[in-house]
C-alpha cells in the first residue's frame, strides 16, 4: 500500500465520518441546518481528496484533464456550503458578497464544463512524473494555462473577503463564545482558503511542481467547523443536564409546596396538568381536560370571576391571581389559591398559559375561625358595655313607661265625666303613642348592639351613627353629670362600615371618656364627639374628654389587651375597638389634648361611591 493512497484515503474517510455524524444530528433536529451545510462541505472535501488521488495516478493527459474538470464540482459545493455555513452560524456576512462568491463559482463551474480539457488548462501537453514520499511516483500536468482560471481565483478572493468580513462583524458584536467562533472558524477558513487558492494558482501558473493539495487546507477548515459544532453538541448535552437538574429541583419544590401545575396550549386547545393538580381538582389521571369541564368544578359563585380573570390574562394582562372554591365530585369543598402567567407570540396572541394551584382550605378555615372569634369577642365587649349602661338605660325606658301609665290613668279619670273632653283624650293617646315609640327605640338600639351577628359593611351616614350612640349614652351621661357634645358637620361624605361595630367603638370611647371624669367637678365634665374630613379618602372621628388624660408612659399601652387603669375594668374595650377599626381599613390612636384630657381618634374610609378623590 502506498503512502499517498493511505494519506488521501484517510482525508476522505475522516471527512465522510464527520459528515455522517452531523447528517445524523441534522436528521434528528431538522432545525439545525448548520449541521447539514457542514456535512455538504465535508462530503465535498472527501470528493476533492478522491479527485486529487485520481489525478496523481493519472496515466494520460486525457485522464488528468477529465478528473480535474470533475474536481470543480465538489469545489463548487464546498464553497457554496461554506458560505451558507458562515451566514447561518455567524448570523453575519454581507449578502451581496455571499451572492457574488456563489455566482462567480457557478460561472466558473459552467465555463469549466464548456472548456476542453478544463477551466485551468487550454491544453495539457504532457505529464511530468514526480517522486515524493519515499520514492512514490505521481503525475502532474504540464500545459498552457487557461485565462478563465482567473475567474475561479476571483471567486476565492471574494470568499476570503466575505469570510473575513463576517468574522470581524461577529468578533465586534460577540460575547466570549462568539469571539472564539469568529477566531477558530473564520480565522481558519480565511487562512486555509488562502493556502488552497495559493497552491492551485501557483500550480496552474506552472511556478511550482506539486500535486494538488487543496484537500489538506480544506480538511483543516472542516476540522475547525466540526470543532465548533461539537462545542454546540456538548453545550446542548450540558444544557440537558442542567435542565434535568432544574426539573428535579422544580418538582421537589412543587411537591413540597403541594402545588399542582397546569398548562393550557391555546393553539392546540389542549390542557396538560400534573398528577397533583388532577388530584386537587378531582380529575382522574387519564381524563381529558377541557377548560369548560375545569370551570364546572368551581363553585358557581366563583366561576364567573375566574372566567373573567382568565380572559383578562389572555387578552393582554399576562397574569392572574385568584382564590376560589371547588365543588368536588364527592360533594366536598376545597379552597384553591391559583396564579398563572400567559406567554404571547410576536403578534400578541396568547400561546401558553401556565398556572399553579394550591390547596388553601386550611388557611381559609383558619381565617374564617379567626373572623368568628373576633366577632365573638366584639360581641362579648358589647354585652359587657351594655351591662355598664344597664341602669341608665332602665331609667331611659322607665321615663316613657311612667308617662304612659300616668297618661292612661288620667284618660280613665277624664272618661268618668259626663261629657269627656275628647280633645284632651286625643292628645293623651298621641302622647302614649309617642312615648311607646320612644321606649321601643331604646330597646331596639340596645338589642341591635346585643345581637350576635356577622359583619355587614355598607355606606353609613356619620350624623345618624353618632346620633344613635349619643342617645344610648345620654342617660348614663346625665346620671354621671357629664355634658355629651356632638358636632358632626352635615356635609360629610358617607363612610363604609358595619353600623353596629362602629357604634360599639364610639360607645366604648364615650364611656371611657366619661370614666376619666370622676375627679373633675360636675359642672365641668365634658365629652365631645367630633368628625371632620381627613384628606380625600377618609373621615376622622374624635372622642375627647377633659379628664385626667393618659400618663405619657401608658400612652403606648392603652391598646394592649388586659391593660386597664379602672378598678373593675377588663382591659378589652380598646383592643376590640382597634381591631374593629382596622378591619374597616382605618386607624385608631390615642393622644393627650393640649388643654388637658385625652382624645381618641379614628379614621374610616369614605364609601367608594362618595369618594371625592
Amino acid at each position, binding site marked *: 500500500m502506498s503512502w499517498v493512497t493511505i494519506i488521501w484515503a484517510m482525508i476522505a474517510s475522516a471527512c465522510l465520518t464527520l459528515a455522517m455524524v452531523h447528517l445524523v444530528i441534522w436528521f434528528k433536529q431538522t432545525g439545525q441546518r448548520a449541521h447539514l451545510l457542514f456535512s455538504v462541505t465535508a462530503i465535498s472535501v472527501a470528493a476533492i481528496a478522491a479527485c486529487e488521488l485520481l489525478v496523481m495516478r493519472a496515466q494520460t493527459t486525457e485522464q488528468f484533464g477529465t478528473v480535474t474538470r470533475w474536481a470543480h464540482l465538489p469545489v463548487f459545493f464546498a464553497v457554496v456550503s461554506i458560505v451558507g455555513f458562515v451566514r447561518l452560524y455567524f448570523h453575519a456576512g454581507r449578502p451581496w458578497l455571499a451572492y457574488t462568491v456563489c455566482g462567480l463559482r457557478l460561472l466558473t463551474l459552467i465555463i469549466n464544463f464548456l472548456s476542453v480539457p478544463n477551466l485551468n488548462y487550454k491544453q495539457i501537453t504532457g505529464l511530468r512524473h514526480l517522486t515524493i514520499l519515499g520514492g512514490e511516483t505521481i503525475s502532474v500536468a504540464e500545459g498552457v494555462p487557461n485565462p478563465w482560471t482567473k475567474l475561479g481565483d476571483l471567486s476565492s478572493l471574494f470568499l476570503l473577503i466575505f469570510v473575513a468580513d463576517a468574522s470581524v462583524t461577529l468578533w465586534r458584536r460577540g460575547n466570549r463564545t462568539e469571539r472564539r467562533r469568529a477566531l477558530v472558524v473564520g480565522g481558519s477558513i480565511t487562512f486555509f482558503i488562502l493556502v488552497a487558492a495559493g497552491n492551485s494558482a501557483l500550480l496552474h501558473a506552472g511556478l511550482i511542481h506539486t500535486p494538488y493539495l487543496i484537500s489538506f487546507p480544506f480538511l483543516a477548515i472542516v476540522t475547525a467547523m466540526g470543532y465548533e459544532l461539537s462545542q454546540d453538541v456538548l453545550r446542548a448535552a450540558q444544557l440537558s443536564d442542567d435542565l434535568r437538574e432544574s426539573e428535579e429541583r422544580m418538582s421537589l419544590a412543587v411537591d413540597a409546596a403541594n402545588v399542582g401545575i397546569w398548562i393550557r396550549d391555546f393553539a392546540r386547545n389542549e390542557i396538560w396538568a400534573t398528577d397533583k393538580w388532577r388530584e386537587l381538582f378531582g380529575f382522574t389521571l387519564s381524563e381529558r381536560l377541557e377548560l369548560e369541564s375545569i370551570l364546572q368544578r368551581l363553585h358557581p359563585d366563583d366561576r364567573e370571576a375566574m372566567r373573567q380573570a382568565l380572559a383578562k390574562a389572555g387578552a393582554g394582562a399576562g397574569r392572574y391571581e385568584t382564590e376560589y372554591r371547588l365543588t368536588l365530585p364527592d360533594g366536598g369543598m376545597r379552597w384553591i389559591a391559583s396564579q398563572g402567567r400567559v406567554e404571547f407570540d410576536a403578534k400578541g396572541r396568547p400561546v401558553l398559559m401556565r398556572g399553579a394551584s394550591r390547596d388553601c382550605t386550611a388557611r381559609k378555615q383558619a381565617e374564617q375561625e379567626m373572623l368568628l372569634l373576633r366577632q365573638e369577642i366584639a360581641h362579648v365587649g358589647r354585652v359587657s358595655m351594655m351591662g355598664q349602661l344597664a341602669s341608665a338605660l332602665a331609667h331611659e325606658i322607665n*321615663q*316613657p313607661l*311612667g*308617662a*304612659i*301609665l*300616668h*297618661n292612661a*290613668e*288620667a284618660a280613665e*279619670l*277624664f272618661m268618668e265625666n259626663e261629657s269627656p273632653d275628647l280633645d*284632651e283624650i286625643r292628645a*293623651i293617646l298621641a*302622647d302614649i303613642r*309617642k*312615648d311607646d315609640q*320612644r321606649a321601643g327605640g331604646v330597646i331596639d338600639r340596645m338589642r341591635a348592639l346585643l345581637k350576635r351577628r356577622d359583619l355587614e359593611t355598607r355606606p353609613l351616614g356619620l350624623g345618624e351613627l353618632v346620633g344613635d350612640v349619643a342617645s344610648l349614652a345620654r342617660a348614663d351621661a*346625665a*346620671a354621671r*353629670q357629664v355634658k355629651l357634645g356632638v358636632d358632626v358637620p352635615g356635609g360629610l361624605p358617607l363612610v363604609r362600615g358595619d353600623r353596629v361595630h362602629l357604634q360599639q367603638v364610639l360607645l366604648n370611647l364615650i364611656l371611657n371618656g366619661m370614666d376619666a371624669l370622676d375627679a373633675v367637678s360636675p359642672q365641668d365634665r365634658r365629652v365631645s364627639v367630633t368628625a371632620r374630613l381627613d384628606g380625600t379618602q377618609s373621615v376622622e372621628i374624635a372622642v375627647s374628654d377633659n379628664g385626667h388624660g393618659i400618663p405619657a408612659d401608658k400612652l403606648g399601652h392603652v391598646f394592649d389587651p388586659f391593660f386597664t387603669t379602672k378598678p373593675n375594668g377588663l382591659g378589652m374595650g380598646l383592643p376590640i375597638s382597634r381591631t374593629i377599626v382596622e378591619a374597616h381599613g382605618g386607624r385608631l390612636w390615642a393622644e393627650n389634648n393640649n388643654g388637658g384630657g385625652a382624645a381618641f381618634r379614628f379614621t374610616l374610609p369614605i364609601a367608594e361611591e362618595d369618594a371625592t378623590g
Partner: protein
Amino acid sequence: MSVTTPIVHIVDDDASFLAAASRLLRASGFAVKTFSSASDFSRSATPMHRVVWWLICRCPK
C-alpha cells in the same frame, strides 16, 4: 270654701313625663304647676309651707 285649692308643683327633666303627671293630677282635681328643672322651681317663689315633696334623685340640673 276657706281652704285654698292646693297647687301641686312637679319638677322633672323629662317633658313627656311632666306632661303626663300634670295631666293625671289635674284629672284628679288638683291645680298643677310644672317645672323642667330645680332652678326653674326655685325661681318661682312658691310658698314653702304645706309642701309635699316627691323627689327623683340624681335628676340633673
